């Protein structure tokens, strides 16, 4: 009885107000993302580390459609002049050959203190001639979880120094809000620990962060393992995704890069489409009216 009543309630057809939607963007380039002064036509940001080869990295950049790649800041190898330049050189000659837009996003990976992160960012700005920086201040080597206190300090100083800061943070909504408040150009909570490939381990927290922060672009950074993780992040309303290991560690990196590009587009479309709410019982999609009847028993 109770079930029958519940069913009746859930079966009520709600009147729908249908507004005319904008034309469906048939590629990511028709639904651009603005971060600071950048306009990006792909919502995928790609890391450049640990690919089987430089060619594999270049193929993955191409296949993903990304326009923003992360690089680290490391000491020049004084023993092997010219060799370390090849990453930057290869990325730049790739873009000049294809005419596509590719921005560098230097990171502060490996920094444990705000002081280290600030100097690393300033060196990156000088070397790469960009004021973009992904600020990463880790708390320990085992989890690579961000140190929220040092992170907030570093981001605050770098924003004051004129940087466009993309802050890699944990999935704590309060820290995320504070990073947005100090003027970060984007806030990038993790899905799971870096390189773990576990996907969205706490979609609840990520959803809260999205609801709390409507005014600053949000990117899910770290822990994504495959295309469905990317789609899920985008369906939560995130503006973009940043991945590295999911692509570079895949059996065929460029294939995964392509899958991720499609997933980001699919997830973004689904988010903008506005999904149905979840319900406990079935609801026939075919109407009952006009069903045939059989003769007497």
């Amino acid at each position, binding site marked *: 009885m109770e079930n029958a009543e519940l069913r009746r309630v859930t079966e009520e057809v709600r009147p729908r107000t249908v507004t005319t939607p904008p034309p469906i963007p048939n590629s990511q380039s028709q639904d651009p993302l603005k971060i600071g002064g950048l306009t990006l036509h792909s919502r995928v940001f790609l*890391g*450049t*580390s*640990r*690919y089987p080869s430089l060619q594999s990295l270049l193929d993955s950049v191409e296949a993903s459609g990304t326009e923003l790649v*992360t*690089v*680290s*800041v*490391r*000491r*020049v190898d*004084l023993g092997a*002049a010219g060799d*370390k*330049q090849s*990453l*930057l*050189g290869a990325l730049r000659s790739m873009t000049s050959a294809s005419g596509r837009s590719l921005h*560098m996003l*230097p*990171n502060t*990976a490996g920094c444990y203190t705000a002081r280290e992160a600030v*100097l690393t960012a*300033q*060196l*990156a*700005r*000088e*070397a*790469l*001639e960009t004021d973009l920086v992904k600020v990463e201040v880790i708390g320990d080597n085992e989890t690579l979880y961000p140190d929220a206190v040092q992170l907030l300090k570093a981001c605050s100083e770098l924003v004051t120094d004129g940087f466009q800061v993309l802050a890699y943070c944990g999935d704590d909504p309060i820290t995320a809000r504070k990073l947005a408040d100090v003027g970060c150009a984007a806030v990038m909570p993790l899905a799971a620990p*870096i*390189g773990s490939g576990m996907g969205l381990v706490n979609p609840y927290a990520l959803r809260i962060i999205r609801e709390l922060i409507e005014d600053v672009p949000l990117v899910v950074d770290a822990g994504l393992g495959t295309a469905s993780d990317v789609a899920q992040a985008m369906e939560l309303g995130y503006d973009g995704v940043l991945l*590295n*290991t999911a692509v570079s560690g895949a059996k065929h990196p460029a294939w995964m890069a392509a899958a991720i590009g499609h997933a980001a587009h699919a997830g973004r479309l689904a988010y903008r489409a506005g999904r149905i709410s979840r319900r406990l019982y079935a609801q026939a999609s075919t109407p009952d009216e006009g069903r045939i009847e059989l003769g007497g028993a």
Partner: protein
Amino acid sequence: MTSTAIDITVNGTARTVPPGLTVDGLLRQLDHDPSIPGIAVAVADRVVRRANWSETLVPEGARVEIITAAQGG
């Protein structure tokens, strides 16, 4: 009396260089053409802007960091 050499540290390695060396000169001595883009230099934890390389002296005991972009996530 002026010294004929000073001790500095470059990217974590101790080096002995002539006194009065500029950042520009140091890079040349390390076989790096300073005109090639993509690198940055810090002396004593402060970035030396590329425009100032030719006039900034590397002092005795300085810690010098020379960096570039590398693989990263």
